[in-house]
């Protein structure tokens, strides 16, 4: 039996806390606030929720969140692994549960004090000490000192530069676009603070070839998204934003951040995601009005444009040149400011921006946006979405 998936479920509500460097409250409280905001946006109450989905990495248990909000019985809960690669997959889980009738109202949430608490940008000793296969995988990189996300991405970036002649300025184009969009977004940490390519070029080296301005922020905050059937969402307060496609992807010889052993390195797992997104939705890159591409580090935005088919291999530097990914360009990317400009909430804040674009409520609205592609963490097993405007 196959259940028609595309369009069966919709986003009915979105919520978030403010984004900061020190929230001053617990991660549980952040997630509870964001969830309540999302339910309020949808015109639902905690008692309507019967499913919860989050990241394996999230420190807030589903049952803890349910207790705080006074939710009743839960009949679906699920977690997705691989760090930021989980972001869009939480909606995939929720949409599948709704489409198959396993749940009626599912909230996807992610909340953390990632700046004031445990900072992902630092060396994560625990990641090498895990007594599982991920810990064993990290044994081949951490002891030598390759142990920060930036350095693992820089290794890929250097190879990409070598193969395609990409330069640091090409990476900088992504940072400039993100920061331009953030500068007009009051919710963004870098509201009112655009940068130039010269700012990017003069920022200090973090992991050569990556500069400071190639790296996302570290943030405190939480995001929540309510998913229900499209039919039901249409009757709710904010209307429906249908999930036209949702996919996960892992490629051959996959590792977490260190997939350096396959013939061609890079992020083929995003190609796995992209092919499913186009097949499920019946759409293609040309149908996409704006994209939210996971941007913990700028080089992966270029590589995603290639894996998703917006341009050919090695063509992204040309694709992003001359403001093409800025508002008014041929494919505005990360109109909220991305994780470099708005906040780093593990990709979940980007899903909210896609929903705003399709509702027509973004502060950087792309005129007539009807189809938005959203991606999750890169360099890891990942996920993606195509969301559409209803009707």
């Amino acid at each position, binding site marked *: 039996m196959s259940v028609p998936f595309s369009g069966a479920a919709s986003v009915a509500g979105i919520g978030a806390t403010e984004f900061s460097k020190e929230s001053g409250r617990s991660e549980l409280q952040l997630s509870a606030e964001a969830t309540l905001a999302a339910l309020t946006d949808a015109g639902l109450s905690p008692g309507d929720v019967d499913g919860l989905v989050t990241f394996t990495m999230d420190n807030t248990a589903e049952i803890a969140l349910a207790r705080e909000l006074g939710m009743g019985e839960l009949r679906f809960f699920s977690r997705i692994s691989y760090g930021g690669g989980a972001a869009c997959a939480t909606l995939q889980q929720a949409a599948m549960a709704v489409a198959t009738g396993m749940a009626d109202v599912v909230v996807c949430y992610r909340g953390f004090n990632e700046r004031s608490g445990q900072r992902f*940008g*630092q*060396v994560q*000793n625990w990641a*090498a*000490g*895990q*007594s599982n296969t991920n*810990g*064993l*995988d*990290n*044994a*081949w*990189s*951490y*002891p*030598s*000192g*390759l*142990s*920060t996300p930036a*350095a693992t991405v*820089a*290794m*890929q970036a*250097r*190879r990409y530069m*070598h193969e395609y002649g990409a330069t640091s300025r090409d990476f900088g184009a992504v940072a400039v676009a993100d920061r331009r969009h953030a500068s007009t977004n009051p919710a963004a940490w870098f509201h009112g603070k655009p940068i130039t390519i010269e700012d990017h070029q003069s920022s*200090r*080296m*973090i*992991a*050569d*070839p990556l500069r400071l301005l190639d790296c996302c922020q570290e943030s405190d905050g939480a995001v929540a998204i309510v998913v229900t059937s499209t039919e039901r969402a249409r009757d709710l307060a904010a209307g429906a934003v249908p999930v036209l496609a949702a996919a996960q992807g892992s490629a051959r010889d996959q590792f977490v951040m*260190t997939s*350096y*052993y396959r013939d061609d*390195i890079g992020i083929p797992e995003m190609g796995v995601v992209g092919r499913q997104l186009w097949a499920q939705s019946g759409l293609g890159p040309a149908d996409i009005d704006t994209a939210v591409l996971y941007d913990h580090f700028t080089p992966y935005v270029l590589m995603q444009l290639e894996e998703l088919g917006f341009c050919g291999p090695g063509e992204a530097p040309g694709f992003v040149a001359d403001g093409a990914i800025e508002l008014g360009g041929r494919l505005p990317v990360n109109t909220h400011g991305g994780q470099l400009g708005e906040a780093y909430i593990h990709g979940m804040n980007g899903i909210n921006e896609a929903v705003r674009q399709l509702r027509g409520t973004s502060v950087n609205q792309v005129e007539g946006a009807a189809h938005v592609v959203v991606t999750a963490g890169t360099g890891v097993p990942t996920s993606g979405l195509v969301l559409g405007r209803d009707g």
Partner: protein
Amino acid sequence: MSDTHDWIMEQASLLRDRGETTPRPARDPVNQPQVHTWLEAIGDPNPVYRDTPEATEVHGGPVAPPAMAQVWTMYGLDPHRPADDPLHSMMQVMDEAGFTSVLGTNCDQTYDRYLRPGDHVTVTTRLESVVGPKRTGVGEGYFVTTRSTWRVGDEQVATMLFRVLKYKPGPRSSGPDPSSTVRPARNRDSEFFWEGTAVGELRIQRCNGCGALRHPPGPMCPHCHATDQGHVVSPGRGHVYSYVTHHAPQVPGKQLPLLLAVVELDEGVRMIGELRDGTGSRLEPLSGPDSGAVEIGTPVEVGFERIDDDLTLAVWRVVDGGSA
């Protein structure tokens, strides 16, 4: 470049232009007592270096160990050096420029024939190159390379390329504590690798079913699904597949900036590790556009850095292009 550097290179150029020194004879001809002293100290049991039937059978009589070539022409306790000795002269130049410490880094010898008692060798030396300044693990310095040739009459019998690092001892930074290096998780599937590095072996998993090499290793061969896994010891040669210079944040046990590479071994597998210079010292990236001591494709070979009894890491040494 600085005046000092210009002066060093100018002196080097003058010394190099002199070419070979005049042949300097050994104090004594090759002789059995000196050979015996050597054999006794080194503990070499080879009978061909003694008056034995084996020596007669293989060489028609006893011969000297080839490694002794230079011994015959050592200066000994005589403090005098011929004025044209290029290594000695270059050392004086470097001392004057403030590069007062010395470290031997390479000694490559070739032997045209084994010497016999009675052979009276001469040696000539020329300055081959002076390369620098290089920032190394011990301090900033220059690599000084000389080439010597030993002859009996006109017949060449041995040669030697000798390279030293003449350096300014760097300030001894307190530095990171290597014992804080992140420890690898290991289990029965990976233990052989770490046991290998501990004894100076770079081991690559080899499937006993189909012979496939694999790194990182695992318990089941993805090709033939055999669970009987062995390993080969790699000569540890390859090239840089990609690399990164890590500047921030601090990494436990490491001094920054830290050069890290994905190395593609000649066997086809890839490994991650720290890049070192040819002497095994920390490779410090020089600033500026010409910083590239390393690029994608740079040949490297394995070295081993012992952290403590529990951990030895494979590191990758840039194979020196030699004398530029």
